């Protein structure tokens, strides 16, 4: 390890330790811009920009309304996320108050430079694309999103051309579409084949691998980045594995997996088509576990098969 790399490593480890120690949010706000280059990254095919492979979702977990106590706890989660190398945060107007809770947290953390802000258009009104974006931006307290996606393909025929126009005007960097729970894959496939999009978001985890057959190869062929949502199948997989009291196998530790969430995440992000996985959590300790998947090795194809075989025997 070179001296520079060693110093970077020490800085990040120190920040992570401070993040866990309960230091008041404002006290660490200026330090959350951790160097992200030492983490596992993938390229966004349409631009070549590199992105750390573990992001975070906000479905349910960040929808806490005006509850000050819970807002503070979510800011601590964001702080942990950024000090552990996090970049992509994904939200949606559908997620209740999640956008404004994220925005509030980012404000308190002085808007970390490493943020990759991903949001969605969620309205049936095809003329409201820009207005929906502006409203979401005001909740996030940002001037621009990195990525805007059509949520669950709602009126995508109207929204995608408008998003394309917003991209050409420089008002958003990347555009895409989303689905979840394995729904509407046929329609998603048609969009991927016929429209110039940068990202797709879909459900992909160790027990829901339907996307492997057509969508993931198509994404590779078309140069579309893929965000994997529901990496723990809505928490079910982690709960099941933790309840089983089965310890993580030694050979998985060689891949850098210290716990089951890291095992599940490493499998997902090691698929060549997957750019980023976005687990959601409302607990700092779980965020720390998730972000641990950002370091260590990426499993090979052979190791992936072994991981899958092992897991399917347990669940």
């Amino acid at each position: 390890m070179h001296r520079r790399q060693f110093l970077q490593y020490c800085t990040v480890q120190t920040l992570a330790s401070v993040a866990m120690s309960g230091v008041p949010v404002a006290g660490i706000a200026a330090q959350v811009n951790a160097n992200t280059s030492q983490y596992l990254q993938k390229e966004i095919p349409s631009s070549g920009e590199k992105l750390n492979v573990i992001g975070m979702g906000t479905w349910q977990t960040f929808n806490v309304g005006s509850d000050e106590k819970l807002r503070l706890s979510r800011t601590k989660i964001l702080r942990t996320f950024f000090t552990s190398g996090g970049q992509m945060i994904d939200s949606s107007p559908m997620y209740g108050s999640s956008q404004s809770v994220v925005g509030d947290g980012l404000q308190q953390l002085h808007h970390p430079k490493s943020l990759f802000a991903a949001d969605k258009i969620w309205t049936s009104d095809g003329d409201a694309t820009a207005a929906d974006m502006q409203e979401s931006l005001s909740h996030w307290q940002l001037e621009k999103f990195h990525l805007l996606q059509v949520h669950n393909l709602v009126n995508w025929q109207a929204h995608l051309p408008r998003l394309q126009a917003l991209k050409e005007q420089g008002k958003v960097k990347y555009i895409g579409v989303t689905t979840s729970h394995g729904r509407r894959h046929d329609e998603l496939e048609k969009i991927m084949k016929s429209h110039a999009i940068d990202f797709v978001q879909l459900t992909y985890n160790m027990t829901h691998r339907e996307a492997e057959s057509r969508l993931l190869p198509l994404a590779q062929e078309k140069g579309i980045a893929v965000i994997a949502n529901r990496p723990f199948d809505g928490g079910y997989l982690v709960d099941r594995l933790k309840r089983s009291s089965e310890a993580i196998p030694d050979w998985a530790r060689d891949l850098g997996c210290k716990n089951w969430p890291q095992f599940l995440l490493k499998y997902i992000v090691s698929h060549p088509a997957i750019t980023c996985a976005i687990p959601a959590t409302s607990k700092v300790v779980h965020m720390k576990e998730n972000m641990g998947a950002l370091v260590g090795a990426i499993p090979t194809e052979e190791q992936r098969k072994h991981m899958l075989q092992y897991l399917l025997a347990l669940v």
Partner: protein
Amino acid sequence: MPALGILNVSDLSTYAVEDFIPIDREVFFRLFERQNEFAWPFHLLALGGMVFVFVQVYRQQFRFIPALLAVALVVVGYSFHLRLFSELSWTANYFAAIYFFLAGLLLLTEALCWNKWPGKVDSISPLRCNFGMGLSLFGGVFYPLTVAFVRDSIAGSEFFSITPDATMLFVMGVLFMLPVIHRGLFVLPFLWCVISGIIWYGLDWYPGLVLWLLAGVSCAFGLWTMLRHRESS
């Protein structure tokens, strides 16, 4: 295409039930804690209201009971659904509407039945009255205690005129005890029990499924008494 919230009805088929429950259990229970903090000591007034209802039913003096229930429903519709829950889910606006609409129907009942009460009390059977008493006692007393016991927190429990389920169960129970009311009044309490059960199911909190059980039992009991009444007449 008709719109529900910001979605067309045609889009609804692409969503699952859990898509409309954008909260986790911790946050939902915090709503009850915050509502109880906000409402205290209104709980004492609500308790007095419940006692008033039982005393009036015992005396077979039914006037003012629907109006009191309407006030409780409006308080919950506004202070819980609109003030707290709607921050987290747009569906709460529709839930509030259920409470407000039922409150309106109860006020209408009060007006229409004013001159019929206290007469015609014979039209209600002791069995129906006892069933209603049991249901309202469950909603007003046992359900709050059960939630407090299961969650090990009285501060996060449900109470009549403060939180939705206890209020609606109490209202539904009292409706069984009132004579000469329209059967249609039972539709909204039944609907709420079904909706609330779905929410609890979506949050994986299975004690809340007692609402489905009570809705089913109430529906079956109501139909049975209706058929029995028809046969006897």
